[in-house]
């Protein structure tokens, strides 16, 4: 840093004015105020200068945007229904050009967000950047943290494969430990007492519409409060030196942030390319052998819950995590000293370290337990084999519903089978569709047997009512009696 110089963009704009570009910029600025917007965005002062320690926040913003883009694109092919979700994800993974890559970027992106978020929180904590009128800023960050955990929890179910289904079954079961309202909450989230297609719809809506809306609001609040409070800067240094080394956000910090974003996307890209996200076989709720394991960042919590049984469960599941969460949210209120150097804040740093080391130890214990229990280890190995063989198998398209109706007509009843031939000979299928599925020209016949008995059907075929005639239905008069019986039997068989 040489001698500090105070210039604003306005003054610079003045020096540009004569040039063509300057004139255009001036014209645009008069109409949009882009100059002051750029000024507000880029000239934010960073006390002590740009630093690699400050890249995590913008890294999270970058990842969030990446998740939105990849998520929107995935929605081009995805269907949130228990019938189709797994097929569509398999289609994306196995068939669609670059589908596996984009899905992997999205799925690994959630892990990347967790990692960068932990780095962001740790940096904020160690630098004591939550201090000094930044309680609301910290609180908005906590809300975003919770929303992000909600995003990863709801997103995990969407592929509807075995691990998604069973991990979410366990995850939602935890809710029922909450006294009084637990079961009601669980049913509300699942859309019923059991996991099913309504659970998938709810998780999809939460994942794609509701939580993202809250995240947008949360990010806006977080960034606004951050700009209001100003960058906290380094943890020590006297006012004079800090003032001297203050530099604006642009260009050096912008450069750091861009480099970090590049590192993230390169890492994700390499991972997605060389180790694409897997998809397991479709969820089978009847499987009683399946050993579910949550995503890696939930493993410590999963292990923690193992230690709390019976009457104590509520302590482990609700009281202690609730207390830790409260402690976390209330941090800026509890730790009010202006001191920011971590080595002068031993109590806070120790508690923080204990919690994170504890989570790490729990994760390690879970891993060790799985390895040591031969039954679990072999089941997990089998599950992995299932995933590998599913991934190797070519994509199997789903048989469309209308096909099934047609295929059903491999009829057990020989009379109905004969009726099917007559149905086609007479050209009934030209309007009513193959297998009586209906077309634009005439309604479907599936289920019509429940409405009319055989005699009535025969009568209608011989002499259609006025509504049918108006729709173009001809009278069937040239059929032999036995053929008419067969045709009626066939129409009745359409279910």
């Amino acid at each position, binding site marked *: 840093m040489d001698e500090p110089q*105070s210039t604003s963009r306005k003054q610079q704009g003045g020096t540009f004015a004569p040039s063509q570009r300057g004139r255009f910029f001036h014209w645009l600025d008069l109409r949009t105020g882009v100059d002051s917007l750029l000024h507000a965005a880029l000239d934010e002062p960073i006390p002590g200068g740009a630093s690699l320690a400050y890249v995590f926040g913008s890294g999270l913003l970058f990842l969030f945007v990446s998740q939105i883009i990849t998520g929107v694109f995935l929605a081009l092919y995805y269907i949130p229904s228990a019938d189709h979700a797994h097929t569509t994800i398999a289609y994306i993974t196995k*068939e669609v050009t670059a589908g596996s890559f984009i899905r992997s970027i999205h799925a690994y992106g959630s892990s990347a967000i967790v990692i960068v978020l932990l780095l962001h929180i740790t940096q904020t904590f160690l630098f004591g950047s939550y201090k000094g009128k930044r309680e609301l800023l910290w609180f908005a960050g906590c809300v975003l943290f919770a929303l992000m955990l909600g995003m990863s929890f709801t997103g995990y179910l969407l592929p509807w494969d075995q691990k998604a289904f069973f991990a979410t079954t366990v995850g939602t079961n935890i809710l029922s430990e909450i006294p009084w309202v637990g079961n009601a909450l669980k049913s509300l989230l699942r859309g019923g007492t059991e996991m099913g297609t309504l659970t998938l719809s709810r998780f999809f809506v939460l994942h794609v519409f509701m939580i993202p809306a809250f995240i947008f609001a949360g990010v806006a609040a977080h960034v606004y409060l951050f700009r209001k409070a100003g960058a906290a800067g380094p943890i020590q240094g006297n006012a004079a030196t800090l003032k001297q080394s203050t530099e604006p956000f642009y260009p050096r910090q912008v450069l750091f942030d861009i480099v970090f974003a590049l590192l993230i996307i390169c890492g994700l890209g390499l991972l997605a390319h060389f180790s694409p996200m897997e998809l397991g076989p479709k969820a089978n709720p009847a499987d009683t052998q399946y050993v579910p394991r949550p995503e890696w960042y939930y493993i410590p919590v999963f292990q923690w819950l193992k230690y709390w049984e019976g009457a104590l469960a509520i302590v482990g599941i609700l009281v202690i995590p609730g207390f830790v969460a409260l402690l976390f949210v209330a941090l800026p209120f509890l730790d009010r000293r202006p001191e920011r150097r971590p080595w002068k804040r031993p109590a806070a740093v120790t508690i923080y370290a204990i919690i994170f080391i504890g989570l790490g130890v729990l994760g390690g214990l879970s891993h060790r337990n799985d390895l040591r229990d031969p039954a679990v280890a072999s089941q997990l190995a089998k599950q992995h084999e299932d995933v590998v063989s599913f991934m190797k198998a070519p994509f199997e398209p789903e048989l469309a519903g209308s096909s099934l109706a047609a295929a059903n007509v491999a009829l057990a009843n020989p009379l109905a089978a004969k009726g099917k031939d007559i149905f086609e000979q007479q050209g009934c299928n030209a309007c009513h569709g193959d297998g009586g599925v209906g077309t634009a020209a005439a309604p479907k016949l599936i289920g019509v047997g429940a409405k009319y008995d055989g005699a009535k059907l025969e009568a209608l075929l011989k002499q259609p009512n006025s509504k049918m005639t108006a729709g173009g239905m001809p009278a069937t008069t040239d059929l032999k009696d036995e053929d008419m019986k067969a045709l009626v039997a066939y129409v009745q068989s359409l279910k």
Partner: protein
Amino acid sequence: MLEGNDGNSPGAPPATSRDVSLSSPDRRSFLGVLLAVGTASVAALLSVPLFRFVLHPLLRSTTPLSWAEVGSVDELAAAASPIKKLITVEQRDGWRKIVSEKAVYVIKQANGQLTVLSSICPHLGCSAAWHSENNEFLCPCHGGRFGADGKLLGGPPPRGMDRLETKVEDGTLKVHYQYFRQLVPDKEVIA
């Protein structure tokens, strides 16, 4: 300015100070252009898989031409009159497949060659059926009549019955099932 100063970051001055070399307009704008071009190229690179993802249905035919088996050539060639055959047609529609049965008629031409006719009447799309007692195809809807070779004999249809593309593989007759536009005098594929 959005940002304010607080008591705990004593260094943050209200005015910004910066490196002279970076603040000179030329250097700053050069860096800005460099950054803009750099980020734009990376963004363009990143959008390549997204474009390919979106364009997948256009770049790859989602309803590939599938050949449906009709039956053994020897067996079909032995028949004197048109034979009705139900063929199974499989269509791909994105991640699903639609399996349907279609009725076709196999006829033997004068030179002994087998031809497959779609049973769909070119008038309004009803199924024409072979009536051996009259030795002709009859459409049950509006009385279209076709000869044993599929040629139009009478009634409202604008053309004869539509021939389907065939091939023989390992003694098996295969057909490429297609739909044709109705009410026009010339055969025109619609799907």
